């Protein structure tokens, strides 16, 4: 790498801008106390992260940590489901036959063009209320063996909240699946037409073409946008609090109402979301770099 001879040409302008920004932030925070009459008190927050359990004689996660675990479970399961759905729909979207193309187009346009809140309400009250009883989730929690329950507890959280969490997962997966579909479609269509024609000329079937030519390259190309969609999903998961899924945002509302300390708890929870989202972004950027090495 050749070093630039004068890398700090505009140093003093940068410094000026930086000072101005810092000053503005400090000023805004200083002003908060003049428009907001509020006694800040952060002391109650650690107790809502972990509590001392008298029976077990150890620390146990309290509401906020429980909410965080649920949010992480929601995010992981719904991205898996959304990825499966998105890949199927994405392939249908590039199909040569009209019907699959229409079907996946309908799905994508329907979800992308209505507000998430409306989708979530409609889904939860009209559709999920019919799906969850069919899955028999309520009886799982009472009929299953202790070991199954433990596994379920790890994967999906407390059994009594199973149908609650599952409707949240399905809801998010259907919602995010539409965006994954578009990412996958773009990935498939980014493969030069010449390669497809070349494959066809040596007699590959459409499935073989997808499997050996298009998909290996497309998957590599869609990883970065998928990763960013995953991070968006972690934050989007907060909207399912509207349908009372017991995740971080919902439980935060409960703590805020119970303690009547609204601002501290929301600022703190925003920081929690930041930490998990940023950790994911960091992990994905490492992954991308490794994949780039393989390519080279």
């Amino acid at each position, binding site marked *: 790498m050749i070093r630039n001879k004068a890398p700090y040409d505009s140093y003093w302008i940068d410094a000026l801008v930086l000072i101005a920004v810092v000053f503005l932030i400090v000023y805004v925070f200083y002003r908060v106390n003049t*428009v*907001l*009459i*509020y006694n800040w*008190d952060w002391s*109650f927050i650690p*107790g*809502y992260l972990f*509590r001392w359990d008298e029976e077990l004689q150890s620390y146990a996660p*309290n*509401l906020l940590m*429980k909410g965080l675990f649920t949010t992480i479970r929601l995010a992981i399961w719904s991205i898996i489901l959304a990825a499966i759905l998105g890949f199927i729909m994405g392939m249908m979207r590039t199909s040569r036959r009209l019907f699959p193309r229409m079907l996946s187009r309908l799905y994508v346009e329907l979800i992308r063009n209505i507000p998430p809140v409306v989708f979530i*309400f409609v889904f*939860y*009250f009209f559709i999920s*209320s019919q799906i969850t009883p069919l899955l028999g989730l*309520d009886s799982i929690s009472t009929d299953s063996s202790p070991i199954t329950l433990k596994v379920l507890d790890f994967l999906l959280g407390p059994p*009594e909240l199973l149908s*609650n969490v599952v409707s949240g997962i399905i809801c998010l997966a259907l919602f995010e699946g539409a965006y994954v579909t578009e990412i996958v479609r773009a990935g498939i269509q980014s493969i030069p037409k010449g390669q497809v024609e070349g494959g066809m000329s040596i007699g590959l079937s459409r499935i073989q073409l997808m499997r050996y030519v298009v998909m290996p390259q497309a998957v590599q190309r869609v990883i970065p946008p998928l990763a960013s969609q995953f991070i968006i999903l972690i934050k989007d998961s907060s909207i399912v*609090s*509207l*349908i*009372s899924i*017991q995740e971080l945002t*919902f439980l935060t*509302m*409960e*703590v*805020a*109402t*119970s*303690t*009547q*300390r*609204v601002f501290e708890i929301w600022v703190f929870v925003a920081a929690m979301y930041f930490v998990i989202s940023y950790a994911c972004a960091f992990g994905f950027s490492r992954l991308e770099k490794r994949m780039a090495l393989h390519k080279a």
Partner: protein
Amino acid sequence: MGIVKSSIALIIGATLVFLTFGEVFAGETQKRLTSESVIETIMKRGKLKVGMSTFVPWAMRNKKGELIGFEIDVAKKVAADMKVKIEFVPTAWSGIIPALIAGKFDAIIGGMSVTPQRNLTINFTAPYAHSGMGIAANKNLAGDLKWPEGYNSRSVTFTCRRGATSCSDIKKIWPKARLRQFDDDSLAFQEVINGNAHATVTSHPKPARWVYKHPEVLFMPSTENLTEGNESFGIRKGDPDALNFFSNWIMVHTSNGWLEDRHNYWFKGMDWADQVDLK
């Protein structure tokens, strides 16, 4: 003759058949109603599912993250009397009625006041509590306003919790005043403390407690009840058995004083304050 006789016989026969089947049908309907009642479902499941929403001191989280409060006590007692387990389904207040109708839980025990509008969508039992609405106002903004007619002006702003009966009470008592709604009571109070709204209305004992916490900004223009509410269990329509059971449960525990005793514990005193991180 023959024709007349046989037609009479036919009519009598038909009537008999009709009556018998009518009886059978009525019996069937009765059986079906009973077996479809939510009471039957609860007994079979061995668990009562109650929809509620966090609202101090009706229901709140203690330091261990468990639910405590007046209606938590009530729901636990109902379950204990039915000899079933209890499960609470914390639900966002604005979506609690649709959630009941969609069958997410068996009953709302959530300090819900009976209003004719709500009653068109769900059924209510006999009342188990009577809450009064109180008011807290900003000293600088509303200190000079004449009570209560001075508040009925376009320049006066009220706040309330979205979907609560206090919102409709404000509209009724002070129709000219502006109204801003928040999802949480604390925010409704904060807006008044910040001087962006004149007053807020919510059920007792909250106004008094906030005035106690912020004596330099807040005051109570009146300590009387603005309106009196009737809080009832909410259940799905078309279930006479459940309506009868819950209403009579409330009647029994009203006459033996249990409900009043619990109500006084949560609403009149603050003995429970150290269980919560209430600042």
